[in-house]
C-alpha cells in the first residue's frame, strides 16, 4: 500500500499558499465552500490511489482540540 506523503513535498510553499488564497479572494463564504469541494474532487481524481485518499481522509478528519469544543 502506498503511504500518504506527510513530509514537505511542495516547492515554493509560500507561493502555493498565496495562489490558494487568491482563488478565494472576494468570494462569498458559500462560494468558497463550493470551490473547496470542487478542488478536493479534482485533486482526488488526480491522485487516483484509493488507499492514499483513505489515509488523507483519516488525517483530515482527526479533529483538532478546538473543534471538540475544548
Amino acid at each position, binding site marked *: 500500500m502506498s503511504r500518504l*506523503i*506527510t*513530509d*514537505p*513535498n*511542495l516547492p515554493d*510553499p*509560500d507561493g*502555493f*499558499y*498565496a495562489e*490558494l*488564497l487568491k482563488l*478565494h*479572494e472576494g*468570494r462569498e*463564504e458559500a462560494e*468558497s465552500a463550493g470551490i*473547496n469541494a470542487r478542488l478536493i474532487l479534482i485533486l482526488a481524481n488526480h491522485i487516483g490511489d484509493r488507499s492514499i485518499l483513505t489515509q488523507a481522509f483519516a*488525517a483530515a478528519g*482527526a479533529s*483538532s*482540540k*478546538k473543534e471538540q469544543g475544548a
Partner: protein
Amino acid sequence: MSKIFEVPLYPYRRSADQDAAQPTRHPVVVVGAGPIGLAAAIDLALHDVPVVVLDENDRVSWGSRAICFAKRPLEILDRLGCGDAMVDKGVVWNRGKVFFDERQVYGFDLLPESDHKRPAFINLQQYHLEHYLVARLQALIAAGKPVELRGANKAVGVEQLDDGVRLSIETPEGTYVLEADFLIACDGAHSPLREMLGLGFHGRVFEDNFLIADVVMDADFPTERWFWFDPPFNRGQSALLHKQPDRVWRIDLQLGWQVDKEREKEPERVKARLKAMLGEDVGFELEWVSIYTFQCRRMDRFRHGRVLFAGDAAHQVSPFGARGANSGFQDTDNLCWKLAMVMKGKAPMALLDSYDSERVQAADENILNSTRSTDFITPKSATSRLFRDAVLDLSAHYAFARPLVNSGRLSLPATHDGSILNGPDCADLPPAVRPGAPAVDAPLEESWLLDRLDSRFHLLGIDSDLPDSLEIDGIPVDCLSVKTDSLPSPALSARYLGDATSAVYLLRPDQHVVARWPSYQEAEVFAAFNRAIGLAPREVAA
C-alpha cells in the same frame, strides 16, 4: 543615569554655511541620521567622499523601532567598522516556537551552518545600534574623514537643479540654504523630502492594529522568538515575544481593526493585557508603548535625478520578517560605492540607475514576503482564516504543513539575478554564489572571507593563479588568492567550488558577485569589470 536616547550626541552648532553670502555647495548631503543615513555617511566617508548629514534631532531615536538585525546587515556593518560592538551587545538567537491556541505546534531552529562569522540574527534596540553608528561616524571625523553631522538641522525645502539639489534648512538660529551635488534621502517612512518633491508612495495598508510594548522585566523565558496564533490571552489575535539586551523584552499584541487606539494605550489597560500574557506574578515596567498599523508600499523609483531615496523613505514593510532596517542597510551598501565612483569620474551617471533597479527588485521581494506573512497572521476573510487554522492544526502533527506556517519570513539578502551589472556565470560552480548574489562568508587561514573584502573591487582566486595586483582604468582591484588545502575548514571550498577544481570570482565593493570563471583570463575580467561599473558593452563601443 540618563538613558542613551536622552543624551544629545550631536548638539546644534552654528555652521559657516549659515553665514555664507551664497549657498555653499557640498558633494553629498544625507538627510536623516537614523540607521540608514548614518550607514550611508560612514560608507561614503570610507570612500573619502565628503558628506554632510542633516538631522532634525540631536540624539538617537527612542521607542519601539527595529530590533532584529540579520546576518547580511551585520556583515555590512562589519565592513563599515562597527559590527563587533553591536554583536557584543546584542542578544544572539536562532530558535523559535510557534503556538496555536493553548499548545506549541512546532519549534524551529534557524540552524546557522557553522563557519560563518556572524549569527543568523541578533536582537538589539535601535537606539543602541544608532549610538554605535554615531560613535563610528564621530571616530571617522576625528580621524580626519570629510564628514559633518549637523544636529537640529531640519530640511524644510528641496528643489532639483540641473546639476544638483538646493535645500532649505531650519535651525534654532533661523533658516539657511545649501546645495549638494547629490542628496540621499533617509528621512524615514513619512519622508518629508518625498512629500516636498510630490513623489508617490503606493501599496497596501493592512486593516489591523498592533500594540507594541517594550517592557523591562526579569523573566526566565528562553532566548527564542515565540509567536502565538489565537492564544487564550489574546483571543482571535496573534502575539509575539522577543528578548532584547538590558532585560528589555519586545511584545507585539494584535488588536484588530476596530479599536479605540487612545484607550488601548492607557498604561493600566496595557498592563492588564501583559499580565494576562506573562502571568500575574511577573513584575515588569513599561519602557515604551505604541500602536501601529502596518503598510507595505514603495516609491515607483528610488532615484529621482540627483536625489536618491534609501531605507523606509523608499519602501515600507510590515515588521514580520524584520525586513525594514535590514533592507535599508542593503540599500546604502548598494548605493555608496556606485555614487563614489560616479563622483570621482570613474563611472558613468547611468551606474546610479542600477541602484534603482537592483534595490527595487529587493524591495519587491521584501514586500512580497512581508505581505504574505501579514496575510497569514491577519486573515482577511473567513475562508482565509479557515485555511490558516487548518495549516496550524496540521502543523502540530504533519511536517508538510510547517513550511506553510508563516509568522514572518526572516530577512535574507536579495540576489540580483538579471542585473545589468552582472557578468558571465560558470555553470559548474555552486548556485548560491552566482552573479548578483552576495558573497557568503567562510573561514580563511587567519580571518574570515568577508572581513577580508573591504570597500574595493576584489578578485578572489580559489586554487587558481591570479596576478599579484590589478588596476583597471586607474581603479585598483584587490587580488586575493586562496589555496584550499591550507584552509582550516572545507567551508570555502564547498561554498565557492562545489565539485569544481578551481574558480575565479569578481566581487563588487558591496561584496556581491559580478562574474565567475573556472580560471583567470584578463580580457574576461576587464570586460566584466567595465560592465559592473555601468559601462555595458554597447556604451563601451560608443
